[in-house]
Each structure stands twice: as structure tokens, then as C-alpha cells.
């Protein structure tokens, strides 16, 4: 019957098909709450766990202080450690005891004041203070080294003052740490975590849901309808995009109000770059599902290709500039890398256009590339 044929131009018909598809997708989302859980519950749980779990601020480092011969000189030095919030010192009498504690992982380091410490202090040359740090965790060891050096130099200054001759240090280092003066690691880790969590959610949302349609054969059923391939793609992306943006907004709100990370950029820029990144993540998920065609493989690829690379290669924790050149090239194909940089800048530094523009451009290129690849793979399957 001619009457049932949709009226209007091709654009209007396309729009009708699209809205029909989106309605179908929306119904599916509501019926199976797992995608709502992925979009909203997952980011909240992960952000809470990570926001509190990932920290590089070491405080109360357990340390053994060996005082072989206690005296006023040693007492002044030990007091420096006892007063510091970076250390929780344990006084021991012999180095053997301390070494045993280090082996048992009860302390991370040893400060060793030998029996002749006081005598050496009065002598012509400098007395020596032995310090042993467990170097297994190199980064932590370096942080502890910095703390010990800090305690030592304040002690020297105080000692010089007490002796009536202020310590003369030729050159003093005046440090100014921009954007994060109090050096809270959470301030840079939480924005990075948002990027990682959104990579996960975006890819999971589409990878699993679309792979399921392939597996059940409903994708083929969709393809024999007059719906065009790009309409199917759009119909898949738009609903999950809306879900994903909701998750993103939730994460940003938590970063600002729960974790008290300062936000110095502007919200329109944040919104635009977040939308771009989410599109890229969704497109990557679509690509995974189109390539894998079954949930088992799609899921494994989603886990392997998203979370760990985003965690390790995005510059969120490990400095990209220090990686070998070959690995640096690999990081260019990690979408999270660009968003981590954007988010850290927006949160801590503000709208720095040189950072935002370059990274957004890279994201845009990746997004288009993924979508084109998806489009090509989908066409092939129709043949």
C-alpha cells in the first residue's frame, strides 16, 4: 500500500529511521540495566577506590634510627625525625637489629649514628651519618632520600644557630611549584583517573553491547532493513554518548567536591573536549566489537586494549618523555594520553590553548579514523 510509505524528503526519512533506531536502543538500555550501571555506577566506584587508593604522598615512613651512643648531639638529630610528619621513627640500639627489621619489611630505611658520632662532630672533619634505604621501590626510595636530606639540612641550620654562627650555604635553592604548590599527588592523579575511567566505560559500553548484537544475529536483521550503515552507527553512538557524558559529569563533580581538586579552566572547554574524547572512546569500542564479532573476544580485547594501556602509557602516572623512543610512538595511539594532558591542564593550570588545541586535534584525528575503520568493516560484512 502506498499510504504506509513515509512522506517527506530523504533527509526527513533518514531522521525518522534514526529516531526509531535510537528509541530501540533506549528501550534496550532501560530493559538491561547493565549499561546504565557501566555508565554511572562504575565511574563512581572506580573514582572513589582510585582517588583514595592511588597516592604518591608518602607520610609516616617507618624508619629505624640506630643510636649506638646516645648524647646531646644525637638527641638533637633524632628529634628532627620524631617531629617530622614524614617519618615514624623507631629507635634501635644495634645496626643488626635494624638490618633485620629492614629485611622483614618492617622499616623502609635505616639512619645509623655510630658510637663515635659525637666525637667526630667536635673533630676537624665532618662526622658521617650512615643512611640505608630499601631501594626496591626506586621512586619511594628517592622520596625517602629527599625527606632524610630535608631533616638533615634543617638540623644543620639549627645546630649552626645554636653555636652562634649561622650556617653559610653559598647557593640556596628557592623553589616555586606552579599549579600545585602543596604538591598533592591527588591533584594530578584524579584528573588523570577520570580519563582512564572514561576510556574504560566508553569502550565497554559499545564493545560489549554491539558484539552481542553480532553474536545474536540481530545486527544482520538490522542490516536487511532500509536503515543505512551510518544510521546504525549513529543510532548506536548517540544513546551511549548521552549515558557516557552523564558519567563524565558525575566524575568531574566528584573530583571537585569529594577530592577537592581545584578546577581552574572553563566548563565549556571541558565539555567540548570531554565530548570529543568520549566519541573517540565509543568509536574505539565499536571498532573492537566490529573486529571481534563475538563477546568473548570483544571483552578480552576491551580489557587488554583499554585499561592497562591507558593506565601505563597515558602519562597519567609515568612520564612519557622518559620512555624509550619506540614506546613513545606507541603512546601516540593511546587516546587517553591526549585527554589526560587536557584534563590535568584544565584542572590545575586553566585554559592553556597550546595544550588544549594540539591534544584536541589529535583526538579528532583518532576519532575520525576509528569511525572510518568501523564504517569499512561494517560494509564488508554486508557482502
Amino acid at each position: 500500500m502506498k499510504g504506509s510509505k513515509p512522506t517527506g524528503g530523504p533527509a526527513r526519512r533518514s531522521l525518522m529511521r534514526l529516531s526509531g533506531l535510537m528509541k530501540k536502543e533506549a528501550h534496550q538500555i532501560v530493559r538491561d540495566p547493565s549499561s546504565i550501571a557501566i555508565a554511572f555506577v562504575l565511574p563512581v566506584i572506580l573514582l572513589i577506590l582510585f582517588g583514595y587508593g592511588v597516592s604518591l604522598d608518602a607520610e609516616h615512613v617507618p624508619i629505624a634510627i640506630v643510636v649506638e651512643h646516645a648524647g646531646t648531639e644525637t638527641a638533637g638529630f633524632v628529634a628532627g625525625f620524631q617531629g617530622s610528619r614524614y617519618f615514624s621513627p623507631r629507635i634501635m640500639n644495634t645496626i643488626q637489629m635494624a638490618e633485620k627489621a629492614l629485611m622483614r619489611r618492617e622499616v623502609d630505611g635505616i639512619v645509623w649514628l655510630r658510637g663515635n658520632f659525637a666525637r667526630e662532630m667536635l673533630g676537624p672533619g665532618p662526622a658521617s651519618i650512615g643512611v640505608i634505604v630499601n631501594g626496591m621501590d626506586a621512586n619511594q626510595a628517592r622520596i625517602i632520600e629527599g625527606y632524610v636530606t630535608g631533616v638533615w639540612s634543617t638540623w644543620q641550620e639549627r645546630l649552626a644557630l645554636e653555636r652562634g654562627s649561622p650556617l653559610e650555604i653559598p647557593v640556596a635553592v628557592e623553589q616555586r611549584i606552579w599549579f600545585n604548590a602543596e604538591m598533592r599527588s591527588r591533584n594530578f592523579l584524579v584528573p588523570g583517573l577520570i580519563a582512564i575511567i572514561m576510556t574504560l566505560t566508553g569502550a565497554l559500553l559499545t564493545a560489549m553491547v554491539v558484539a552481542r548484537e553480532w553474536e545474536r544475529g540481530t545486527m544482520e536483521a538490522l542490516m536487511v532493513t532500509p536503515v543505512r550503515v551510518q544510521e546504525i552507527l549513529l543510532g548506536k553512538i548517540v544513546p551511549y554518548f548521552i549515558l557516557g557524558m552523564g558519567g563524565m559529569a558525575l566524575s568531574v563533580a566528584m573530583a571537585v567536591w569529594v577530592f577537592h581538586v581545584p578546577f581552574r579552566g572553563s566548563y565549556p572547554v571541558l565539555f567540548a573536549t570531554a565530548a570529543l574524547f568520549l566519541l573517540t572512546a565509543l568509536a574505539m569500542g565499536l571498532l573492537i566489537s566490529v573486529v571481534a564479532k563475538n563477546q568473548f573476544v570483544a571483552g578480552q580485547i576491551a580489557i587488554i586494549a583499554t585499561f592497562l594501556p591507558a593506565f601505563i602509557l597515558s602519562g597519567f602516572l609515568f612520564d612519557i618523555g622518559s620512555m624509550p623512543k619506540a614506546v613513545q610512538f606507541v603512546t601516540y595511539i593511546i587516546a587517553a594520553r591526549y585527554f589526560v594532558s587536557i584534563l590535568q591542564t584544565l584542572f590545575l593550570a586553566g585554559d592553556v590553548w597550546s595544550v588544549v588545541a594540539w591534544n584536541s586535534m589529535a583526538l579528532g584525528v583518532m576519532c575520525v579514523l576509528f569511525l572510518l575503520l568501523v564504517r569499512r568493516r561494517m560494509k564488508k560484512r554486508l557482502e
Partner: protein
Amino acid sequence: MLRRIIALMIKEIIAIVADPKSRIVLIGPPIIQLLVFGYAATFDLEHVTYAVYNEDRGRASRDLLARLEASPNFHRIACVQSDREVRPLIDGRKVMAVVHIGPLFTENLLRGRPASLQVVVDGRNSNTAMIVLNYVRSIVTGFNRAWSEARGDAPAPADLRIRFWFNPNLDSRWFIVPGLVALLTLVVSLLLTALSVAREREAGTFDQMLATPLRPVEILIGKALPGFVIGMAEATFILLMAIFWFHVPFRGAILPLYLGLFMFLLSAVGAGLMISSLSVTQQQALLGTFLFLVPAIILSGFSTPIANMPPAVQYLTYLNPLRYFLIIVRSVFLEAASFDLLLNLYWPMAVIGVAALMTAGWLFRRRLY
């Protein structure tokens, strides 16, 4: 009973190995991840980019800057002439630090007045900022010592002699690569077992298996063993790579390590089966794997120390098998730890493993009848 279990196990392994896609997922990613992450995951700054803003024309400032330049970790990429040029360099992440020397630097030094070196650091990553500052400070300390000696000033009353045990050059890779052994083994064994039952349930072959004389316990064991065997094989391969490719020193003994690996796989496979028995569809199984895996990695001490977490989160890490095995691998590698030092790390994993397997068995039976 044993023959039935072995038959089931062989069937499972064939099912995994015969499917080319699952086979690739099993072999390719762990190798690629080990190589890429092994090189990427380092806290050592080898390429600190910095700019110099020197207003002083004297010899002392040149000496100090030459010391910075001589350090293999520092790469000067710009010299600026005014304050205004500093901000764009740091904002745009062109440099990590700007070193500023004022106009009176050399004069002050020569007259015995204190001089200062200003360092502006990009704090967007506070960890790298701290490392950069520590580098700069150690270079300035060296300069100060040389300057005082040249002038014949009295030396400081006490010196620090810092030594690092187990990792004298503080190479992050020695810490991260053994960690990857534990991490990648967990990913593979968990994925295998968690998805194995859900996949059969969706395909309908699980009901067929129930119709065979196999008992639920036997099905459970048959499903657990492949993850165990393949996990062992993967772990061994990654261990060999860590020793012979990455040259991480292996100072301990094989036996304490493999006892730990055994317990670890027990708990990983147990967790996988628990996820498997709880989920009806593969999507649920995958989500479950995710919800276990991601916190397990973050809260394990793999990348950031457990000691830095708030106490409540620290208690949570006691439930994480990865936490224990990470310490075992690293201690055996670097500290040559013996059985008695590791004893209190073995039993929590065994408890977690047995508890998870028993829960999985109970859930299986409840789902079956």
C-alpha cells in the same frame, strides 16, 4: 573420577587453543604488554626539559649551569631573556622547569653573601616535580661543596652517606618488571576462568555437560585446571623474559617463588570461578572480571605504595591476592627472600583461594538444581 576430570580438562584446553582468536588473545597481548609496559612503566626521569633565565654575567652562574648541562638527565631546550617568556614555556608543557639566576648572583657569592637559584617547576605532575627538584638540589649541593672547599670554608659538621640496598642505582624497572609477572598472570588466568562457564551457558553446551555423568565438583575442577596450567606456563615465560630480556637480577630461589605462584593462581582461579558462577551471560562475566581486576591492580602496590593509602583502603587490600604475590615476586628477585620471611604472605593467598573455590562450588550447586 580422575579420568573424567582429566578428560574435561583436555576438552577445555582444546577449546581454548583451537579457537584462533582466543589463542591470539592468550599469547599475543601478554608478550606485547610485557615489552611495552616493561619499558614504559618507569618513574625514573631520563629527559627533564628545562629552560635557563640567566641575568648574571659572572663566572659562578656559568659554572653552576655547566653542572646542570653535564647531567645526562637534563636537556636545556631554551634560554629566555625576560620574565614574560617563562609562563608560556611552562603552561604549554614545553619545559618541566625554568632555572632563574638573578643579576647579582656571582657578586653576592664572591662577597660571601648568600645567593639564590630560583627554580620554577610545573606541578601538574607533583611526582615529577619533586624528582626534578631533588635533582636540582643535589646539583646545587655539589656546587656548594666545591665552592666552599675552594674558599677554604669550614665543612659542614656532618655528612650523609646514603646507600640503597637491593637496587643501588634506583632503577624503577627492577621494581616494575617483576610486578608485571604477577599482573599479567592474574589477567590471563582470571579472564580464562571467569568467561569459561558463561560462554558455555550462553551457547547451551553447559546443559549438555550437566547431562553427562560428571559431578558438579568435577566440572568445577575441570574448569579450574586449565586456567591454572596456562597461568603457570605464562608466568614461567614472563619470568624468563624478566631475567633474560630485562636483566632484572634474580637473587632468590625458584622454590619460594613457585610456592607463591601456586597459591596466587589458586586464589586467581578461585576468584575467576566465583565470577563465573555468579554470572549468567558473558557480559556479566566480563563486567565481573573488570570489577575485580581493576581495583585489584590499583590497590595492590603495583604502581603506588599501599602505605600511602588511607587506613580503611589499606584494610581492603588484605583481600587482594595480588598484594601478597607482588611482594613475594619482588622480594625473591631483589632481596633473595627465604621461606621464613615470606611465610605470612603465603597463607592469606591460600585462605582467599580456598574460600573463593568453596563459594564458587556452593554457587554452582545452587545454580544447578
